[in-house]
């Protein structure tokens, strides 16, 4: 009888072996499937502003493109206004609580987002910074325009416009203590302060509000009738002064170089009120943000810093193939 059991046992062992083999194959395939796609990585993308700014729409577009390509699930969220730092902090904390596989963040404040970023780091969620960084070592990677270089570019353009004659230049910035604005201003100052004859009358903060920048410019024109140039450090801070110059009849006399793009800026460029603008690549930022996040989730090594570059747009090159898509990112109305 025992011999019989032994035989039966062996048979059962054979069966079990086969079953185990099948299970193993199944698991292997399942696992391969999992790492290959079905268990999609979840990525939360937190932008600075979710309502109207074209920049962030294009950014989100790039992020969606990468999500499709790398088979990730992404949600793009952000405060209504980029000055709503508290709201963004709250969003960040809520995102950490949802435990996504990675977070891509464009910080509205260089310092105040740090604690929330640390929470993400403590929770083991890879954090990728895009466009605007924070004062922390937690982020795995920082994907943005090299704003110092972009500032230097626009500073160089202003220096060119002044054609060596020098003069007074004002810098219209947006939200103080934002990392991007700090870098851009540094870049601009790096160049202009080294240019003989150029005098920087000051940096003025528009808080990213066009109206404020407009009025600020009119004030400046009164205060400094011999103002030779204005450098705008973001879209609102470029369009506001542009409109002010147009309205004050100072177009051409006061040179204007700016940042970013919009229909308003395109018009200002066409009219010749604005001489040049430096355009970033928000699409690439969004794309690379998500791509890098996916790489970080997979445990691949990601670069600490990725410069998405900036393009100088003037009236002469604005309708070139490469630039059209940057200035007019959307085909529909």
């Amino acid at each position: 009888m025992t011999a019989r059991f032994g035989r039966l046992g062996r048979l059962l062992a054979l069966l079990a072996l086969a079953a185990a083999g099948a299970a193993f194959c199944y698991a292997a395939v399942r696992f391969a499937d999992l790492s290959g796609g079905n268990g999609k990585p979840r990525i939360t993308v937190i932008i600075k502003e979710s309502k109207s700014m074209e920049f962030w729409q294009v950014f989100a577009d790039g992020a969606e493109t990468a999500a499709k390509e790398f088979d990730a699930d992404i949600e793009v969220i952000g405060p209504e206004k980029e000055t709503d730092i508290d709201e963004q902090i709250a969003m960040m904390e809520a995102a950490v609580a949802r435990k996504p596989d990675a977070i891509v963040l464009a910080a509205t404040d260089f310092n105040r987002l740090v604690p929330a970023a640390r929470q993400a780091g403590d929770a083991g969620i890879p954090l990728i910074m895009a466009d605007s960084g924070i004062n922390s070592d937690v982020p795995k990677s920082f994907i943005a325009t090299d704003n110092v270089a972009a500032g230097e570019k626009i500073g160089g353009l202003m220096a060119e416009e002044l054609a060596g004659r020098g003069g007074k230049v004002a810098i219209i910035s947006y939200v103080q203590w934002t990392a991007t604005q700090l870098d851009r201003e540094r870049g601009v100052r790096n160049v202009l302060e080294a240019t003989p004859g150029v005098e920087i009358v000051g940096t003025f903060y528009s808080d990213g509000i066009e109206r404020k920048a407009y009025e600020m410019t009119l004030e400046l024109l009164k205060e400094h009738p011999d103002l030779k140039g204005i450098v705008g450090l973001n879209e609102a801070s470029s369009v506001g002064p542009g409109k002010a110059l147009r309205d004050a009849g100072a177009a051409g006399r006061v040179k204007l170089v700016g940042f970013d793009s919009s229909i308003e800026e395109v018009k200002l460029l066409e009219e010749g009120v604005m001489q040049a603008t430096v355009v970033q690549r928000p699409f690439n930022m969004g794309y690379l943000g998500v791509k890098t996040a996916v790489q970080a989730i997979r445990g691949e090594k990601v670069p600490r810093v990725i410069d998405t570059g900036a393009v100088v747009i003037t009236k002469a090159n604005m309708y070139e193939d490469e630039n059209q898509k940057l200035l007019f990112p959307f085909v529909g109305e």
Partner: protein
Amino acid sequence: MKWLPFKSIQTNMAAAFASLILLTVLLLSFIAYRLSTSAVRMTAEDYTAELVRQVNANIRTYVDNMHTISSLALNNRDVRSYIAGADSMPKEKRKETEERISEFFHSILISRKDIASINIFGYDGSFVSDRRDAVLNPYVSIAGQSWYKLAKAADGDVVISSSHVQPIFKDEYRWVVSLSRELQREDGTGVGILLVDLNFNVMNDMLTQIDLGQRGYVFIVSHDGNLVYHPQQQLVYSGLKSERVDDVLRQGSGSFMTDEGKQSRIYTIQDTGFGWKIVGVSYVSELVGNKRQMDLSLVLWGSFCLLVAIALSVLLSRKLSRPIKRLQERMREVERGNLDIYVPPDSQREIGLLARTFNMMVAQIKELMSQVVREQEFKRQSELNALQAQINPHFLYNTLDSIIWMAEAKKSEEVVLMTSALARLFRSSISKDQELVPIRTEIEHITNYLTIQKMRYKHKIDYRIEVDPAILDCRTIKVLLQPLVENAIYHGLKNKYGSGLIHITGERIGDRIVFRVADDGVGMDEETLGRILRPDGRKAEGRGIGVANVHARIQLHFGRDFGLSYESEPEVGTTVTVTIPAIEPDAGEHAANSGQPSETERREDGEQPGAGERAADSGQQSEAGPADSDGASGGKEESR
């Protein structure tokens, strides 16, 4: 069966079945996999090609629409007259014509959602648009636009632009595809440019909805390498992505595959015929992704089939091996000693045959065993008989009587001789336990016996023993010759008138030893002769009791080839021939070895060693030995 590791036939069968099935399943799966892989791939390629054709058809429809509209415009009477002589027209009339043209363009546009605008730009600076309130962008030079320049250079041919932003209207930056051609008078001089703008978003919407797998996409490149449409245009322009535009431009319609490892793509190209190329790009790894799903189902189904197969093979092998197992169990019973076993014949032929053979075998074993028991019984009986023959009490009384008479007659020397012969006779018969003894011992024994008999019957008996000394060490069964000699004396010589001779010879013939005991006595008739060797012979006559026993013992010991044979002729004599195999002392292992010690033992027992020696001596000279006669003792013996 060495390669099958299991001991049980059932497990082995199951394992064999399972591996057979496994092999088949694997082979089939592999083939199916290969076939379906290539099928999937071909389907994917066909699908892409079909999709690209579809896109081409759609794009062509739009472009053909633009063509139609441009022809429509050119054939319009007002437009024709406007071309023919706009500069010669009076101002009023010209304005009127322009308004009618604008109206006409507007009416076309109302029915066409895909057309953004229709305009005529005269070389003289005039401008007619579908929109009556159209304001041109003052900061943009119309003549600087590429569609304007290209149309002018094309000399009346249609020019289709790439997708671009149309900046010519104030506050309007639409993405369009422009069709432009020069308006020419009949003499071929150009008067202006006709521009038909197609809303690019109709194409864009159509193109973005195309699904070419997770990552696959469609793009359109114009003949000069500009991307008309690309879902990742910005990535391509900024160099984050490379697009094989050069390869695409070099090739007409068709497809090619890039060699980028895991990122390998298949490009399917379709030439639109008006300078654009539509390219479907699909990732090879996504076909592999499909393949993975296929792998999964294949593995799942395969393992399911395998499990079923294993279960089946277990069941099957159990069913097949059950009769064998049953047989095996019965065999084990037999092994334990139970011979009363019967295996019911199975329905299956081979196994049934096996069972029948087994039954037969068991029956035979049983039969043989009982036979052995019977033979042993018989053997024991005949040994006993032999022993009885040896120590025949009548013989003893008669011999003792003879000794007494001799002693009374003061024949002391004869008394000594007879007594010592008697003693030796009994000593040799007491040496039991060994079935086989040296022939030498047997000869000694018969010599002693004959010595006694000759002394008793005096002149009536004479004897001669001639045995080849070479066979003296060979073995034989005990008390072989005594019954024969006894028979010869009592039935051959005693009844003869005068003296008789018993002649014993022993020689080796081949591998046999042949003894002959011949007497010249009264002989036997045929009937007695026929009866003598039969075991029941003694019942008919006293004669033969020992003889038949000797014959039976020889045959029991050595087989049916051996035994006794009688030749006899009445009044002439009888010769009995004894045939036994020649058994060399060492071949008779046990018997030979134990024969010697037993003799030594005898001497060491302290039983008159001298007497033994003397007996041996006297045996050799027994021919001339003293004789004695006693009719009474003979009678007594006979009456036994």
